[in-house]
């Protein structure tokens, strides 16, 4: 080994600078906290939080700990992100394909949608849906039912709740169906490789996923009933719906704007992916006698997916991070509950902001690891 001064000096200086900056910050933080009489520590997480959260997926009230409040916020963030990702993907794929349509009107309509929604700041869209559009909805007593069971009111969307009996049997039947499908797929692949025969896997899969749960209803004793929300009068002018599931308007505004906004980016990714597959591929596939469906399924999509997935992953990450804008309309997500209310109450700025940032970092990194794994799985295996 021969160490050259020229190689070591720049690195040493950089590291020294970083260490100095961090040291300076920590030193100041210590002095500041001493002066203000704040002590550093994460012990507050077990203390009683004594604040309420409007919407939570797990049982929570003021008597629970700060850690529980953190969980409530985290679950709400994940809820919004998952719903947003699902809607944005569906919408994005439709719009992305529509942008490639030979039909002039559909093409332009999709282009208009993309250009319109992606050039307006997301925060403005959230404000628009929450403060302007959803405020124009009727009061609970004036709301008309959609399909007889949904009520869209200024206080949120009320949907029927599912009430299950023997839910676990239903759940097992679905698991069994999924396992059966995986087995059949593996078998079909083997048969095709050995004998060249094709088994209609798709039809069998669809059949299985419907028939097994249906059997659980017929034989397994699973019962499903709906609890329809019912209007109830609290006072002369105050009405509320009881029963069913209520989705708060914050959640609706947030998922709506997040998915409309992110779908534009996903649409562009999908379009770029499909366009990225050479025309020759399609023609070559058709010339060896594949049907249009097979061309799409076996030739175009596998290649397009390779181009689509990395940028789409980025969009999923963006959506998850953007869900933190929820704080602006008081949807109780991680930022509002933890970095907002909890910080106000405890005054532990460094601990709470660092936990919040670390949580988002973990979420982002786990999504990107998952997607990298999937990406690697479908990447071209070069020999």
């Amino acid at each position, binding site marked *: 080994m021969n160490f050259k001064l020229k*190689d070591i000096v*720049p*690195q040493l*200086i*950089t*590291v020294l600078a*970083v260490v100095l900056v961090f040291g*300076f*910050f*920590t030193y*100041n*933080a210590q*002095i*500041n*906290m001493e*002066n203000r009489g704040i002590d550093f520590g994460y012990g507050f997480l077990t203390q009683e939080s004594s604040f309420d959260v409007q919407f939570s997926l797990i049982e929570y009230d003021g008597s629970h700990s700060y850690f529980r409040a953190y969980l409530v916020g985290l679950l709400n963030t994940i809820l919004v992100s998952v719903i947003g990702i699902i809607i944005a993907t569906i919408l994005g794929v439709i719009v992305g394909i529509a942008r490639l*349509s*030979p*039909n*002039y*009107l*559909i093409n332009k*309509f999709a282009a208009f949608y993309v*250009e*319109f929604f992606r*050039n*307006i*700041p*997301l*925060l*403005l*869209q959230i*404000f*628009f849906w929450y*403060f*302007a*559009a959803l*405020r*124009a909805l009727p009061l609970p007593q004036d709301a008309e039912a959609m399909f007889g069971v949904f009520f869209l009111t200024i206080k949120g969307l009320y949907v029927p709740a599912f009430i299950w009996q023997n839910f676990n049997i239903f759940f097992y039947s679905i698991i069994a169906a999924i396992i059966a499908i995986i087995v059949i797929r593996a078998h079909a692949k083997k048969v095709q490789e050995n004998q060249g025969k094709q088994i209609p896997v798709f039809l069998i899969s669809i059949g299985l996923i419907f028939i097994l749960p249906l059997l659980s209803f017929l034989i397994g004793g699973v019962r499903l009933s709906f609890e329809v929300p019912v209007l109830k009068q609290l006072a002369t002018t105050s009405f509320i719906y009881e029963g069913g599931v209520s989705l708060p308007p914050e959640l609706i505004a947030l998922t709506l704007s997040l998915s409309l906004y992110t779908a534009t980016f996903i649409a562009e990714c999908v379009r770029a992916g499909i366009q990225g597959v050479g025309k020759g591929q399609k023609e070559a596939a058709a010339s060896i006698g594949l049907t249009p469906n097979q061309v799409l399924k076996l030739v175009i999509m596998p290649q397009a997916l390779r181009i689509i997935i990395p940028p789409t992953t980025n969009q999923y990450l963006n959506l998850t*991070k*953007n869900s*933190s*804008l929820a*704080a*602006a309309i008081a949807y109780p997500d991680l*930022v509002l509950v933890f*970095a907002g209310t909890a*910080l106000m109450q405890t005054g532990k*700025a*460094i601990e709470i*902001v*660092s936990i*919040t*940032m670390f949580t*988002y*970092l973990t979420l*982002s*990194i786990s999504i990107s690891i998952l997607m990298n794994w999937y990406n690697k799985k479908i990447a071209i295996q070069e020999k």
Partner: protein
Amino acid sequence: MSSINFLKPDRTNLNTFLYLGSFLFFISILDVFLNSFFRLNLTGFLPNFLSFLLPLILGFVGLYFIRIEYSGIKNLDLLNKHINTNNFNAVLSLLIIFIIIKSLPPILSWFVIDASFAGDTKDVCTGSGACWTYIKVWMRRFMYGMYPNAEQWRINLSFVALVLLGSVGYFATDKFKKYLTLYYVVIYPLIAFLFIFFFISGGPVFFDFSYGIIAAILSIIIGFFIPSKFKFYYFLIVPLALYVILKYFLFFEEYIELGKLDGLNWVETGAWGGLSLTFIISFFCLIFCFPIGMAFALGRRSEFPLIRYISVGFIEFWRGVPLITVLFMSAVMFPMFLPEDFFIDKLVRAIIAISLFEAAYVAEVIRGGLQALPRGQYEAAKSLGMGYWKMHIFVILPQALKLVIPGIANTFLALVKDTPLIFVVGLLEIVGMLNLAKTNPKWLGFAMEGYVFAAIIFWIICYAMSKYSYNLEQKYKTDR
């Protein structure tokens, strides 16, 4: 004349099909049009759902009849090719046409016909349309925030001057073209900085931050004349020394007083706001995030492992957290990290936070460009005896940056769209001002107008930027 098979339109009975089909298509559109513009319901005598579906069915049959290949009529062929290729497309086309016709009247009436423009109180807004009076009355606040009315010419003047100075590049003759980079990278930001802090702020501007900027810019300018052998050590020592000299020896308080323009009142940054603040923040973040991002992109590809790890850590950290938490950090956590007597203005804090955040994204974009360059470019530059900096400045970066123009433009667009988030630190740019105006008791109930107004402004800015970047991309596209 052969008998007509109505299930199979063909060329032999072209005219019959053409007249019948266009007639049906026309009727269906007319029905929807009358329904939406004049509230006439021609098919009211039919059962409800049939009356609703009739235009669709008529139009579909009409389009089916005129779908004749190679009819020889140019316009018909064009129509068939673009909106009428098969049944599915025909239905979609019809639906889109109907949606447009249906949605035009309410939009038009809200925007223009029933809207109120006159007057300056809420009382004139009685119609069912938009109340543009609200926007008119609050216009100054939306544009300038809480900046005093009498002083707003300062913002206008600065912006006009900066736009004029910025457009110098278009008029430069060939002789001066080679200095343009220097001008845009060094001199113009300096002028802009001085303009905004002397003119728009007009007060005690020389806090530590500006010493640092002046020191950095001065040392870069002098750095051009330093022989490359000593450049590294020069940049290690001189900027810091300059900073110390500037702060402790040159700029005493009386010089600061001298620097103030007579007769200009100090306007604290808390009063800045509205669209002008959006511009100021975007402008500064744009200037700062680019060099920082470039440095980290180079750092990530550096051959020194420690520098590489630090760069990767920096980039991945900022890319992994949402901007809102970064701003939270700058608002509540950052003051804890500074000495107690050391105060940084919240606008400056927000600008630093957004710049660092966007710099990580710029770094990734530039890294993409660096990776896309073939190795031959590096090897050719090295074989000419160029060192690291010369190679990057004259060979690698010009090509890499050209490649990543769209990516950088997208990052800058994201930056502009992220500026409303500064509400977290208590600064109110245009969206923040809208939220403030909306809660004013005299003007309740006009949230929609405000948001639509801001949306239009942002849309124009962002769309213009994306089109400009597209033009830039086309202009600098070189075949390789």
